[in-house]
C-alpha cells in the first residue's frame, strides 16, 4: 500500500493534534510530547504490539488498541491515561516482574534499565503476584557478550534488530507460553552460532540486562543506542532511548 499522506486531525487526551494518515497514534503522540509508555517498541524496528504497555482507548472502539501499530484516522478521539489503562499498565509490569528474575540491585543494568524505569514511573513498590523464578541457563559462550534469559522480557527487540538491521537472523523465539526463550540459531550456544557477526546490536537494543557486555559489574551496563545508526536515524524525543 502506498503511504497515506493525507492530513488527519484528531484528539489525544483532549488536545487537538494533526497527523498524516500513515502515522500511528504513538508517533503522533510523541511528536506532540504526549507520553505513552512502551517497552517492546523501538523506533526504526518493525512494531510488534506485544508488550501491551502502549494500549490506549479510542472512543467508539470497544477494544483497547496498541498505539504503536494503530494508524490514526480523521476525528479519532484517543485517551492515553484513563484509570483503567493506568491499572492495566501497572499490572502488565507486575506480571513481568513476577515472571522471571528482575532483582535490580544485582543486575548489570541497574539504573539503565527500561523495565526498571517504567516501574518507577508507574509507582510500583510491590508486586501482587508470586514470583515464578524459573531457573534458566545463562549463555556466556560468546567471547564478548552474555545472555541471561532470567532478565528477559521477551520483547523481541534483539530478534528484530538482528533480522531487520543487521540482516543476520541469529535470534529467534523458541518454545511457547511462559517457557518461551530467545535462542541463537536452532538452539546453538551463542558463541558457536555461525551466523552471528558479533555486531552487538542486540545487546544495545535490549531494554533490560538480559543481553549484556561481558566484564560489566552491577549497574555498569549502560546501553549505547548510537551503536545502531539505522535506528538512530529515526530517533525522536521518545522514550525508547533509555534514561
Amino acid at each position, binding site marked *: *500500500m502506498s503511504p497515506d499522506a493525507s492530513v488527519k486531525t484528531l484528539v489525544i487526551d483532549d488536545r487537538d493534534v494533526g497527523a498524516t494518515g500513515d502515522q500511528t497514534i504513538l508517533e503522533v503522540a510523541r511528536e506532540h510530547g504526549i507520553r505513552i509508555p512502551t517497552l517492546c517498541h523501538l523506533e526504526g524496528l518493525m512494531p510488534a*504490539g506485544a*508488550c501491551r504497555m502502549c494500549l490506549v482507548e479510542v472512543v467508539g472502539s470497544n477494544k483497547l488498541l496498541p498505539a504503536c501499530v494503530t494508524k490514526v484516522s480523521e476525528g479519532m478521539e484517543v485517551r492515553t491515561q484513563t484509570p483503567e489503562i493506568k491499572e492495566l499498565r501497572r*499490572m502488565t509490569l507486575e*506480571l513481568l516482574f513476577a515472571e522471571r528474575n528482575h532483582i535490580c540491585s544485582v543486575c548489570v543494568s541497574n539504573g539503565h534499565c527500561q523495565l526498571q524505569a517504567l516501574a518507577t514511573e508507574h509507582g510500583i513498590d510491590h508486586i501482587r503476584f508470586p514470583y515464578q523464578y524459573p531457573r534458566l541457563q545463562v549463555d556466556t559462550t560468546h567471547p564478548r557478550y552474555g545472555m541471561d534469559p532470567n532478565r528477559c522480557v521477551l520483547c523481541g527487540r534483539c530478534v528484530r534488530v538482528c533480522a531487520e538491521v543487521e540482516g543476520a537472523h541469529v535470534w529467534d*523465539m523458541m518454545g511457547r507460553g511462559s517457557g518461551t526463550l530467545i535462542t541463537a540459531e536452532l538452539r546453538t550456544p551463542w558463541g558457536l552460532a555461525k551466523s552471528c557477526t558479533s555486531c552487538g546490536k542486540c545487546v544495545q537494543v535490549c531494554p533490560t540486562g538480559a543481553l549484556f557486555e561481558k566484564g560489566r559489574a552491577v549497574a555498569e551496563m549502560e546501553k549505547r543506542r548510537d551503536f545502531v545508526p539505522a535506528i538512530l536515524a529515526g530517533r525522536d524525543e521518545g522514550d525508547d532511548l533509555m534514561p
Partner: protein
Amino acid sequence: MTPESLTQVAEKERASSTPHSLQVCTAAGCVSSGADEVLKALKAEAKARGVACQVKGVGCLGMCQAGPLVAAEPSGHLHKFVTPTDAAEMIAHLGEPPTERLALDADQAFFKRQEKIVLENSGSIDAERIEEYVAAGGYKALAEALSDLTPSLVIKRVTASGLRGRGGAGFPTGVKWATVAKAAGPRKFVVCNADEGDPGAFMDRSVLESDPHRVLEGMAIAAFAVGAHEGYLYVRAEYPLAVKRLKLAIKQAERLGVLGRNILETGFDFHVEVRLGAGAFVCGEETALIASIQGGRGNPRPRPPFPAERGLWHSPTLINNVETFANIPTILRKGAEWFASIGTEKSKGTKVFALAGAIRNTGLVEVPMGITLREIVYDIGGGIPGDRTLKAVQTGGPSGGCIPAEFIDQPVDYETLNKLGSIMGSGGMIVIDDSACMVDVARFFMEFCMTESCGKCVPCRAGTVQIHGLLTKIARGEAGLEDLDRLETLSTMVKRSSLCGLGQSAPNPVLSTLRYFRDEYLAHVVDHRCPAGVCKIAAEGEVIR
C-alpha cells in the same frame, strides 16, 4: 469435464447401486473401535456368499459411543458395537431387522431431532470416492456458480442466506466475502481453517473425514466469488485420517476437472494445497495461521490490517472455517431463502455440535439454530447418565463459558450464548453434572490456555500463569477472599489487554464460573471445602506438591 458430463458421472454412479448396501462408519471414532476390520469382514462375507450387497465405508454416523456403527440400506436399520464376527449373521439376514444385541434404534430422538445440512452426506457416502459425492448432487453448485452466476451474485446469495462464521465468532460470511472481493491485489487467497483445537471438539474432523469434497466445493465457490486462484487447507497434523482423505479428494477432484486448471471448462482456475499444523492451538487464530502457512512461527499479529486486506503473502485473504465452507454448496443449491428459513432471526441455518461429557449419547449432532439447550441435552443427548443432575453446559471450549442448568431453556444462538457469558464457539459442547467442581473445570481450561499461549504478549503469557496459580491455590483451600478479588481483576485484565483471541477469551471459563458458581469458589476459600469433593484440600500446614 463439462457440467453435462458431471450429470453423467452422477447417473452412472446411481445406476451402479445394488439392492442392498451395508455402510460402515469409517470416521476416526469408529475406526478406533475397530471399524476397518468390520468393513473387511463384511466385504469378505458378501463376496463369499455372492450376495448383491455393496459393502462400503462411509463417513460419521453420529453416535460415536456406540461404534463401530453400520447402517443398512434401503431398510435404514442401524447396527451398534459391530465386530467382525457379526459379519456372517448380518450378510445372511440382509434387509431384516438386526438382533437385539446389535440393534440401534434409528427412530430415537438423537437421529430424528437433528437437521442435517453440513452432515447431509455423512454416513451415506464413501468419502474416498468422488463419484458418490457427485451422485449426491456434489459440485452442482460450483458448476452453476461458474456458468450461470457472477461473483457478485454468489456473494449476494451468501449474504442473503444470513450464514455466519462457524469458527466461533459468528462474523457474517457474506460481508467477509464482499470485503475480500473488493480488496485490491493481483493475487488473492482462500484459506480453510481446519486447525480445530478446542478440547472435546471434533466437528471439523468429522466433516473432513466424512465429506471432504463438500469443503473443497465450498472453497472453490468462495474463490470464484472473491477472485482467488490459490487456496490452502490448514489442517492439524493430529488428524491423519482427515488429511489422507483430503489429499485423496483433491487428487480426485483435479482428475475430474472440478478443481485445478480450467474448472468444468469454464476457464476458472483454483488450486488447493494442504498445509499441516504442528500442534499449536494458537494457529487456529487467523494471523497465526497465516504466519504458520508462510513457514514462520505461529504467532499472531495485531489486527488491523485484517487478512481480508492484507493476509497470506501480504495479499487479500479469505479465511473461513471448515463448517462455514461446508454450508456453501447447499446454500447455493437450495437457495438463500431456504437456508434463512432455518434458525432464528440473527442466527441462520444449523450448527454442528460435538456432544461430550456427562451425557448418555455422545457424538456428533447437527441441530437448527435456536434449539434449546434442553432439547440438545435431554432429547438428543438422552440426558445425564446415572442418578446425577445437570450442573452446567460448557460451550466454546477454552474460549467459552459454563452455562448453568437454570438457563437450560434458553435458545442456542450467537447472541443468547454471548449474553449468558459464553460463546457459540466452534461447536464443542461439554455437559457437566453435579459430580464436577467448577473451580476444577475453570482450572482445567486455564491450564490449557496457559500451555497453549504463544508467549508473545505479556498478559496472556504471564497472566494465564498467575490465574492458573490462583485457581490452584483456591482449589487447595489455601486462598483468601483477597485472592478471589485478584482472580477477578487479573482475569478482566487478561481479557482486556491480550493481543489475540486466545488471550482475550482465555479468562472466559473463569469469569463465567465466578459469575454463576461463586458459592463454590467461596466454599473453597471460606470453608476450605470442595462441595463436589473433587479438589484435594490441604490440611493445616500441609504442602501439596
